[in-house]
Structures are given as C-alpha cells and as structure tokens.
C-alpha cells in the first residue's frame, strides 16, 4: 500500500472518530435535556396530585356529610372525621399530614417524612352532628416532597 492511500485511510478514520464523538456529545446533551423535562413533568404531576387533595379529601365518602345517604351538601362530618382519624393509617396518601381545623384540630392522616414540608390550605364546611350546625373550617395539607 502506498503512503498516500494510508494517509487517506487515516484521514477517514479520524473523520469517523470525530463524527462519533460529536454524535455522542449531542446524544448525551439531548438525553439529559429529555430526562430533565421528564423529571419536571413528574414533579409537576406529583405537585398537582398533592394540591388536588383539597378537592379529594372533603369529597371522600368516609368524611362527607350525608343525610339518609344523600350527599347533596358539601361538608365534612365532624364525627366521621374523628372516626376516620383513628383508622386512617390503613390509607396511603404518601408522606403527608392532613389536618382539619375547626375549633379544635383533628389530624385526619399523618405519615411524617423528612426534609422540608410544603403546605396548602383550603376552606371547608364542617358539620357538627351534636348540635346540627354547619361551620367554616380549614383543611390543612402538608407534604414532604
């Protein structure tokens, strides 16, 4: 093989080598960007699921006020809430703490996590069956993300 041809082959190998390095850098960059975007979507979804609890918890049949089985009033029954707080360990909302504040504080669910806690609150209607009155209370939900 003459020298010119050898140089030609070496040049081709070098070009292919550089091309693959550039391709790999591009792929790493692309996948990292993709992973970051997917992680962002997961975080946003988890965040929304957490915030959605302000709508889910007051509508749970275990807590919601009903009269003769009809749930037409958007309120949490205080006695149901107290009963639920005793069996809530059987439920899994993740590492969260859900409290109902209406006069006194009822911890509906608690699974304590580590690190910083994020909180959302929402007004809720609370029904006290002992005197048949409806009050305004506050639902306080904390999440260890």
């Amino acid at each position, binding site marked *: 093989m003459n020298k010119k041809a050898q140089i030609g082959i070496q040049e081709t190998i070098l070009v292919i080598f550089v091309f693959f390095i550039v391709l790999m850098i591009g792929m790493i960059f692309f996948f990292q*960007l993709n992973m970051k*975007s997917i992680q962002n979507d997961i975080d*946003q979804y988890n*965040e*929304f699921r957490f*915030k*959605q609890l*302000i*709508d889910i918890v*007051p509508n749970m049949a275990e807590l919601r006020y009903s009269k003769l089985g009809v749930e037409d*009033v*958007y*309120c949490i029954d205080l006695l149901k809430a107290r009963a639920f707080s005793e069996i809530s360990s059987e439920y899994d909302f993740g590492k969260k703490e859900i409290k109902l504040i209406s006069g006194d504080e009822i911890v509906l669910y608690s699974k304590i996590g580590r690190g910083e806690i994020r909180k*959302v*609150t*929402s*007004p*809720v*209607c609370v*029904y006290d069956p002992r005197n048949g*009155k*409806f*009050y*305004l*209370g*506050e*639902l306080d939900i904390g999440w260890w993300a």
Partner: protein
Amino acid sequence: MKKGQVETVGLVIIVILLLLIGLVVLIFSSRNKVDSSEDLFLTMKANNLVNSILHVDVGNSNFEQKVIDCCAGVDELSCRDMEDVISSGMALIDEKMTFSVICIGGELKSFGDCEFGLNSVRLKLPSEDIFYATICRK
C-alpha cells in the same frame, strides 16, 4: 487564503449559526410553559370556599338565607351577617380574592380586592340570586 479554504470557513460559520439558533429555540421552547395546574388549584380553592360558605349557619339562619334576605332588602342585619361570613371565609385564603353577589334585581355586591382572576362556579340560589368568588394569582 485559497478559494477552497474560504468556502470551508463559510460552511463552518453557517453550521455554528445553525447550532446557535437551534439552542436558542430549545431554551425558549422549554421556558414558555404555562402552569395550568396552579390555575386549576386556585379554581378548586375558590370552589371550595363558595360551596362551603353556602351552608354555614348564622344564628338561627344560614348564609344562603342571609343572601336572599339581603338581596330582598328585608333588613340591614342580614347584609351585615352576610359580610361577616364572607370576611371570615376570605380570611382563610392567602390569595387576594373578591366575593360577588348578583341580586335578582341586577344589583351587584362585591367584597374584596381581586379585580381580574379565576372565577369559581356560579351558584344560583332558590331566589335566583347568584354568588361566586374570584381569586387572583399570587
């Protein structure tokens, strides 16, 4: 510089420019995302307030009846009671908000300081009076 070298340099400049444009497009496309989940959360919060406040008892009556009486002009006390309940409800919300009552006669009573925001459901009372809340983004 030879003609071939000039052409190569030009090609390299074009490739670099294309790469830069692609990078800018990528950065902007990842930034301009609207956070619709926050809007949904605020709407849920406003809905919760409106739905909760409706049944709250005030003395021997409830909020719904107070709104009906206030709109009908039965007495001043009904309007004051209604305002008290609204104030206590608004105190539970961190965001700025406005609570509006549209009486059947067309009179609008509003409480709060949120002008443009997300509206809750509009609840129609048996008297055809309407009330709803508007919550502002932080």
